[in-house]
């Protein structure tokens, strides 16, 4: 393996933190979902690296399923958000304040 596993993890970790940052700071429902997508991708990178590290295919399988999950997430999430946008006319997460 050319790239050491540690470096892959580092990359994944940074990407993960970026995703978290996006999720936590952007006041937009779509961007939150995007941030989560980035986090998922970070996990996928880590899986790929680990799969290489351990020389097993299970990590790769994980990546495939993560992609599927991400797709589901976007479809369900966007459906919800679009629905919400139609009702409230905003993507602002702070408009979700009915329940307390």
């Amino acid at each position: 393996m050319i790239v050491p596993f540690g470096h892959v993890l580092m990359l994944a970790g940074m990407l993960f933190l970026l995703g978290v940052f996006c999720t936590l700071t952007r006041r937009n429902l779509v961007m939150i979902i995007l941030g989560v997508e980035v986090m998922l991708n970070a996990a996928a990178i880590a899986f790929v690296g680990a799969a290489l590290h351990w020389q097993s295919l299970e990590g790769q399988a994980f990546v495939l399923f993560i992609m599927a999950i991400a797709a589901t997430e976007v479809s369900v999430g966007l459906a919800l958000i679009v629905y919400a946008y139609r009702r409230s006319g905003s993507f602002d997460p702070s408009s979700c304040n009915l329940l307390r």
Partner: protein
Amino acid sequence: MIPFQAEDAIHMTVILATLTPLVAFLLIMLGTRARKNLSAGLSLGAIAISFGCSLLLLARLWNVREPLEYSTRWVALNRMEIPFGFLLDPVSLLMLSIVTLICLLVQVYSLGYMAGDPGFSRYYAFMSLFAWAMTSLVLSSSLLQLFIFWELVGLSSYLLIGFWYEKFSATQAGKKAFVMTRAGDVSFLLGLILVLVHVGNPAILEMNSLDSAGLMPSGILTFAALLIFGGIVGKSAQFPLMTWLPDAMEGPTPVSALLHSATMVAAGVYLFARLFPFFALSPTAMGIFLFIGTVSMILASTMAMVARDIKQVWAYSTISQLGFMIMGLAAGGYFAGVFHLTTHAGFKALLFLCSGVFIHTWHTNDIFELGKGGARRLKIPVIALVVAAGALAGLPPFSGFFSKEAILAALALSSHPVWLAAGLLGVFLTAYYAFRVLCILLFPPSAGEEPSGPVGGLAPAPKGSRQEGSSRTFIWPLIILAFLTLLLGFFQGPLQHFLLGEGKALLVDHGEQAGWLPFTALFLSLAGVGLAWAEFGRCGAARLSFVERIPFLRELFSRRWYLDHFYHFFVDRIVDRGFSKLFAQNDNRVIDGSIEAVSRGTLEAGRFLAFLQSGMIQYRLLVSFAVMVLLSLYFFYRDSGGF
């Protein structure tokens, strides 16, 4: 100890003597409250049987020297056994006879006095309860048993003082009497426990057998004696627990005659006599008793000098005479004390019963008004009153003279002449206030001569009530008691023989009596009588006592030396508004307050947390993430040796 044997005739007699009043009490309470005559009959019958039995016992055991003790196990605890039994010895037999006799006479007297009262049956029930408790107290064989009946006597006293429960002052007086004697009783109980802890079984004979000195260190013994004496102080209304007795006069007059002069209050002195050898083990304690007796006697006499209420005068006089007895006993005059107890029971009951006749007739307690009302027209009561007052003042040939002489003789032998001087002063004061009352009653001022009497004299009593006043149930007890008062003094010799036996002189050798003493005492008595006559009796007298001319003393005496003020202050300010308020508020503010604070705080915390929960989505995600990060950091922290 002799175990119970059913065939023992004496024993059966004792049981009969004590238990019949209880049976009467229970029967009246349970069944015959509605039927007054039956109730009174039951009660009278019971006490008559009791009296008969006690006479029988007295006769049977007149010459028996060894005390008889019967007892049975009542409660047995691991290391403590509480026996129940009777102790028959001269003192208890004598006391038993006095108690039953006066009980009987007073109950007969009450037939007339209480007639028509709605609580007639209840009255006789309580009287029976008292008779039972008192006789059992007298015959108790152990100190614990004595304490139990001591309390019951207090209870019946409470019930009888507050007999007219709709009258505020009566209930107040009952409460006061109970609580003040209770204070003494707690001290008694403590002393009892102290004895119990050290000696084990507080049988009276064992306590008296002088072995206790070996079992208890002398300091503890003195302490125990003092604590037990506390009970005596409470019950016999000695200084400083004396003020309940005058208030107790709120009860019906026969009750005052029976409980609060002749018998119940004398129980304190009786206890002293009962445990005389035990107390005598501690000279220090005896010295203190002497002091307290003296103080009580003087204080009460001074109070009696200014009182206007006839029953109050006799109440103070009771305190003073009880103090006198205690002086005698504490000075070592065992016989003198008991003898005075006996004579005092007779003449004091007589005084009260006579006063009762006046009160019943004129419905007032004020001596001036009674005098104006014409008290002297009631011949027999007046004669009896004179006899009794003479006895009280210590004039021969009445019984009081002999017993007082005995006590003074004992005092003369005590360590310091000051006690004798105090005793003599007491004699003077007693004679003065006794005859002050007599003079006021017998020689009312003629019209227009009244300087300080109450405004608006009393209308002369209607004929009917006067008729009632001299009815037979009133008269016979008076006559019997008057004769007793006349004669009892001459039985000093036999009594002394009975009580002390031969060669069993207790501490005081009566042979060395100073010759001048009787004459001095008699002179002082006569001086007191003379002074009273001069101030209240003779024609044109000012009807103002020498004490009343000094405002300070008058105030001091008539306010009972401010003792009540002190108690009032104590109860009201320190107990009620002090500790009680403090504790009640502590409950409300501190304990409940802190609990309230905790619960309120919890609730507020919940509100705050719930508020935090409703934040925007991203804040929540941030918290989730941050906590996970912190938990991960904890791993590194821990790993680096933090834990």
